[in-house]
């Protein structure tokens, strides 16, 4: 790969990361901009519905459904949390990579293979008590995710191959690899011709938390995994020695090198940690919700997680909040489709618009000038 191409990707990735992920912005960019971004996105979403001949009453109904389906009832909240768990887990991994200056696009692939490994560990070790079985299945997911991500890390450290390109390629490879595995006799479900894996036995499943109230409530013990991961990533980034090296490399690679930090090691370690979290996201999805692996079982979670990490400004707590928001949009979106008959694609559009507006804070400030202190002129004056 040519040096200049690498530089261009670097410059582009850095611009994006600078806009959306660095830590020390003030309250306005952290809180006010996202809130306004959601509002603008919802208004624009309504306009788009108008433009596609949806009448006003239906639009109103669909937004009521959005609210109702995301936070309006116990089952809605359960759905929101269920959708948020893998988003937050994978988002945390990506955020950690972003902090280390690695623009990892590969969460999708790491998640798929991690999930696959968890399923295999699940049905192959049938018979173990759950206290052993479940941790092993989760660990298998994290481990395979970590290994798969470290390929991209190793390529970058050893050859300088840019992680944006190598992780995209590894995603494509993982899709086919999954198809291949799912047709292997010892993985494929007996008596099926389509690619689908055997089911995970109960002892490896993440138990549902609220099925004693209503067996349809899907929220599962992955919730605790998610919260623990938030705390863990926070600890890594802001308390641990290795996290200090991650952040230093991400902020200023030259200074990190001059300070004696080992960049190859940091790249591989950061990619591996990010991959472990993505693999865990895949594992929690198959062990908690799906019960088995199918082609594309991730449903794009690994890509949505990029948006979650960017929106959360690569801060663990930000990622948690952004993940919950995206989970709510997804759960609410399904309700919108049921109640108002509006296409689920609209939710993708609204999510995309939110990201666009968060990435363009000046645009939001221009639309809502009264929402911000008017110091932008003074600040903008100096070079």
């Amino acid at each position, binding site marked *: 790969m040519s040096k200049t191409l690498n530089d261009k990707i670097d410059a582009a990735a850095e611009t994006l990361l600078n806009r959306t992920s660095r830590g020390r912005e003030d309250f306005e960019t952290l809180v006010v901009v996202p809130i306004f971004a959601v509002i603008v996105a919802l208004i624009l979403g309504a306009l788009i519905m108008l433009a596609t001949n949806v009448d006003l009453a239906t639009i109103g109904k669909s937004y009521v459904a959005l609210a109702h389906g995301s936070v309006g009832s116990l089952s809605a909240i359960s759905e929101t949390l269920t959708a948020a768990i893998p988003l937050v887990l994978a988002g945390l991994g990506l955020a950690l990579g972003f902090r280390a200056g690695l623009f990892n696009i590969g969460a999708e692939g790491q998640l798929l293979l991690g999930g696959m490994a968890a399923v295999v560990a699940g049905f192959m070790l049938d018979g173990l008590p759950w206290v052993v079985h479940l941790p092993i299945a989760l660990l298998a997911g994290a481990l395979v995710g970590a290994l798969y991500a470290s390929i991209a890390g190793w390529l970058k450290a050893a050859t300088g191959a840019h992680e944006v390109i190598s992780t995209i390629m590894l995603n494509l490879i993982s899709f086919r690899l999954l198809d291949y595995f799912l047709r292997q006799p010892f993985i494929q479900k007996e008596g099926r011709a389509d690619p689908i894996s055997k089911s995970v036995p109960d002892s490896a499943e993440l138990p549902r938390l609220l099925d004693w109230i209503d067996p349809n409530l899907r929220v599962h013990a992955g919730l605790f995994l998610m919260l623990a991961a938030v705390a863990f990533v926070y600890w890594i980034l802001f308390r641990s020695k290795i996290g200090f090296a991650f952040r230093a490399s991400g902020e200023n690679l030259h*200074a990190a090198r001059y300070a004696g930090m080992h960049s190859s090691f940091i790249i591989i370690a950061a990619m591996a940690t990010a991959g472990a979290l993505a693999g865990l996201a895949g594992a929690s999805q198959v062990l908690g919700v799906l019960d088995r692996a199918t082609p594309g079982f991730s449903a794009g979670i690994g890509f949505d997680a990029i948006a979650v990490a960017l929106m959360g400004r690569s801060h663990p707590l930000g990622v948690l909040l952004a993940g919950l928001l995206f989970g709510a949009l997804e759960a609410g979106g399904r309700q919108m489709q049921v109640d108002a008959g509006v296409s689920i694609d609209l939710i993708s559009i609204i999510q995309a618009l939110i990201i666009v507006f968060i990435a363009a804070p000046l645009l939001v400030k221009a639309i809502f000038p009264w929402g911000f202190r008017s110091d932008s002129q003074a600040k903008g004056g100096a070079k």
Partner: protein
Amino acid sequence: MDVELRGITKRFGPVVANDGINLQIRAGEVLGLLGENGAGKSTMMNILSGLYAPDTGDILINGKKVVFEDPGDGIAAGIGMVHQHFMLVPVFTVAENVILGVEPTGRFDYLDLKTARKQVRDINDRYGLEVDPDALIETLPVGIQQRVEILKVLFRSADVIILDEPTAVLTPQEVEDFFDIVRSLRDAGKAIVFITHKLHEILEISDRISVLRHGRITGEGDPAKLTTETLAEMMVGRPVSFTVDKSPPHPGRPMLSVSDLCLFDAHDDFALDHVNFEVHSGEVVGIAGVQGNGQTELVETITGLTRPASGMIRFDDENVTRASVRDRHRMGMAHIPEDRLRSGMISNFTVAENMVLNSYYAPAYSKGPEIDWPKVQATAAQYCVDFDVRTPSVFLPAGNLSGGNQQKMVVARELERETKLVVASQPTRGLDVGSIEYIHERLIAARDEGDGVLIVSSELDEIMGLSDRILVMFEGRIVAEFDTTKGPIDRNAVGLAMAGASS
């Protein structure tokens, strides 16, 4: 053409960059503009060239008030600026660069390079610039590239030429040639504004001097009646000592010895060409040379950032040629990098985080896999006191500090521990006089404690003031050595060696 600034005030938020400035620029005169970094020189010149609009005040050209609304207006009115960092296209020829943006065109937008070359040659001859219009920029030395920038300004028929720190990149000999060009421009009736912080240069070239401090004109005068001492006092606001007080050195055993060090650059040429030298404990060795003659590579090789192609580096009697940056740091090698913002610190990190950037892993700052932040913060606060780093808190991002305080922070991090060798690269570049004094004292103090000190600087005055021995680097080789302890050395001889004249 005469230009007058009357009562110019420019604020950036709470910061008053220019405060009621009155300034006269006259045709056929060189106006020297002196001031420290952040004194408001650049703001003033950006107002003059139309980049910023002043909050209050007027610009008068030949007695008539003008208003510049965009950056093009300044040059249209005949005010041209030569920036410190050149803005040239390296793969274009001189003539192509000069006409860029104002190309003479014929019918159907045909690029008339022939006319362009002739016009460039005419200007060239008129002012004695001696630049080949057909040479590629990337093949030209820095001094000539600077003349191309001047050509650009002249080609746009500027009558007022602003030169922003023009001598920073030149050797002493190139500076002399450059002054000849400035004089010939002046004699041709151009008005020149010469911006610098170098006192002896401003005294030599200016017809009139204005001194800027904290956004105000704090002194004006005739260079014939001014001395470097009075100028420095106007610039800093207090008397300044120029000589570094130091006792004679007591060199001990060799602390660093470099033998036959070779390194290749991207074109497989020698970046370092069989470099040999020693730094003893208790002495300051200065490496003089024009930027880009292998000093950066030498420092990176000594500190472990780059592996040499061949040769050996011994530090404190151990072969460290293949040791890592961290190993050398742990053995007591301190490194003050040449570009603090790029490689010496992390702007978004707090002062405390920056203070442990290369020692965060040490048992003193950690509890198992964790960093002991309260301890780091306490230590950082202590370092700030010890090294006069002025910051309201160690929790402030280092990028918010002034350049002088940032550099003192880096120096504190490197020197506030047991060191044996200090490698300081451009330790005072771009700093105010007060910080320079302070850092020089600290480096001499390190020497007096028995460290070997290696200083690399493109400021010859700094090298001459601090060093016990001076080595001159040219094209990757050590071409001359001067011993300052055996009587004063000839500044001119060092300058000649820097320019590559064989001695």
